[in-house]
């Protein structure tokens, strides 16, 4: 049974391992240093993040103030559903938004099947991958990230990190604490598949669209720069 298998497997693994002590193993691991990260597509971390979000089939709104955020959310839902309803996680940042100014009626809590739009507050963004990062918890039901047709994410640009190594540094207190978060989600795009004839289709099982609303010290010109970089990469001969 399982415990016998455990002993057998452990014995075989021990036999095939080097038998070093913990201190030697940890020292060796430290010597390997840090893995190289992907080159950022722009010197400005925020622009680099935007470029990667767009490459990941995401879309972006720039909303420096809280009132801009609610307006952006309101316009987005109206554009797609002619509606002003959405489900939002219990995150205090979201609860504190002036929703009425944008004509939005959020319901706070867990998404129910059939509800088309959910809004989440991302704890961080990673420029290297263009990902928004969420820790599971009371304020952030996992299903809100997975079940809607449109997943809207608010991210404060102060929370942007250059690469995955900086993310692990930020996570350190949470994951070394007594109770680790159940889940950590790095979401970088709408759900997609290329399983039929290798053709990319968005909306495989999860959201069909992933929209990132950047707030804080962020300017529209940064988004324009990101769009310019992408269009010049697509048409290298163009002006």
């Amino acid at each position, binding site marked *: 049974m*399982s*415990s016998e*298998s455990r002993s057998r*497997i*452990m014995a*075989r*693994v*021990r*036999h095939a*391992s*080097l*038998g*070093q002590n*913990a201190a030697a193993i940890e020292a*060796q*691991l430290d010597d*390997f*240093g*840090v*893995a*190289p*990260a*992907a080159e950022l597509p722009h010197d400005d971390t925020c622009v680099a993040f935007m470029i990667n979000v767009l*490459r*990941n089939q995401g879309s972006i709104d720039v909303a420096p103030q809280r009132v801009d955020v609610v307006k952006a959310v309101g316009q987005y839902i109206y554009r797609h559903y002619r509606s002003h309803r959405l489900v939002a996680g219990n995150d205090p940042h979201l609860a504190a938004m002036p929703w009425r100014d944008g004509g939005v009626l959020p319901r706070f809590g*867990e998404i129910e*099947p059939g509800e088309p739009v959910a809004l989440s507050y991302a704890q961080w963004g990673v420029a290297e991958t263009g*990902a928004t990062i969420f820790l*599971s*918890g*009371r304020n952030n*039901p*996992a*299903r809100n*990230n997975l*079940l809607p047709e449109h997943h809207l994410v608010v991210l404060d640009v102060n929370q942007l990190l250059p690469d*995955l190594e900086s993310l*692990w540094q930020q996570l350190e207190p949470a994951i070394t604490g007594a109770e*680790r*978060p*159940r*889940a950590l*989600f*790095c979401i*970088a*795009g709408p*759900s*997609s*598949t*290329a*399983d*039929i*004839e*290798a*053709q990319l*289709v968005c909306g*495989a*099982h*999860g959201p069909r669209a*992933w929209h990132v609303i950047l707030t804080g010290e962020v300017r529209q010109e940064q988004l324009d720069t990101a769009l310019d970089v992408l269009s010049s990469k697509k048409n290298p001969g163009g002006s």
Partner: protein
Amino acid sequence: MELQSQHFTRKAVAALADEAAAAQRDAMALFTPVVREAAVQQFGDFEALRQHVKRIRRHSLDNLDYYLARFELEATNNGNQVHYADSASELNSIVLDICQQHDARKVAKGKSMVTEETGLNDYLKRGGLEVIETDLGEYIIQQAGETPSHIVGPALHKSKEQVRELFLEKHALGERELESISDLVGEARSVLRDHFLQADIGIIGANALIAETGYSMLVTNEGNGDLCANLPRVLIICTTLDRILPRGEDATAVQRLLVRSATGQPQTCYTSFYSGPRRETELDGPLETHIVLLDNQRSDILASDYREMLQCIRCGACLNHCPIFTASGGHSYGWVYPGPMGSVLTPLLNSLEDTAALPNACTSCGRCAEVCPADIPLPDLLRDLRHQQSQENIGSPRWRMGLRLHAWVAARPGLYQFLTTRVMSILNKLGRRKGSFHKLPFASGWTDQRDFPSPQGESFMQQYKARRDDRE
């Protein structure tokens, strides 16, 4: 899964004869290397990353006893139940037991090559459970009653017309248009959504296990694995010992290599890390989580000269770059893992006798080793397997006799040169007019399929000598 590798040659011949399928494989073989190359270029110093990860993977395997014990401790503290399975059948029975303890009826599964290896679906079905594969590719082949043809894109051998026919036949949804690929994806989405919501048990694999914290990493684009991991009340993660890495940053370093090598993306849509069951304050997530660690020969491979094979991160790049895989298709390999990585793993996880054709299905072109993000010397491992076969007298007596004769002649340079010079000069004279041969005695294996070009007259050694004399 039942081993069919004994029939590799017969199946490869049949696969080549299916022109439409062969054309689809050719198209993939042209497309996938291009997207991978672009992603690798865009990364920057990909080689430095590859070497870094190789050092970490080697270190993890060298000290697997330490990291395995650490992972078990952390995962248990996180609230998981950790199980060990020595064999495929043991994994299957552990999983069925868990399902039965919960009176489960329906299981939603994320993509997992490990459970393909153990044949879990059939086992659970025999135990009375309804098992739904939720990765689109896996779902398609499950509906078609087939096995995966590729470790990353299990249904890439199917055309959209074939998928359309399949869905029209299997889904009782009445008259409807399923013209485009997005229509097909949309239909699978709506059918599978209900299964996700109704499933009692979710089963997923893991791309990495993190010893320091007990998290497991799951990398997907569809998000189906995450739905399986978050909606049902019980989650079972089925994986193998060799997925263990020391730290979170090591897992994301592997992920950097994996996405670019597998699909040529800079990033997959979902990279998730799971530590255990729902916390008290949480609204959702499974109430109970299990991690089943399968060995199934891996600890033996760890102790063998083939240890490097355990560094494989299952990206599929070696398949996409292999001329034999492209020509013969994944199903010809007759088991779960096809292509170069499969030709090494299948014999190691089964028997050298029953898989004798696989290590020989190699042109030694070396493309697999060039692109392998784990830097596994696949052609060398395949050669070592062939050597082992010959030492253990595996393969047809005629073939072994031929090899022995060749080795005997090749070990005598004077005789070798004499014979090759003679034979080449005769063939040159005979074939000069046409430039090639349709048929040659003792070489029907070659000439049955293609012409043999007539030699240009002088052997390499003759030309080399002549040039050296000229220079002097």
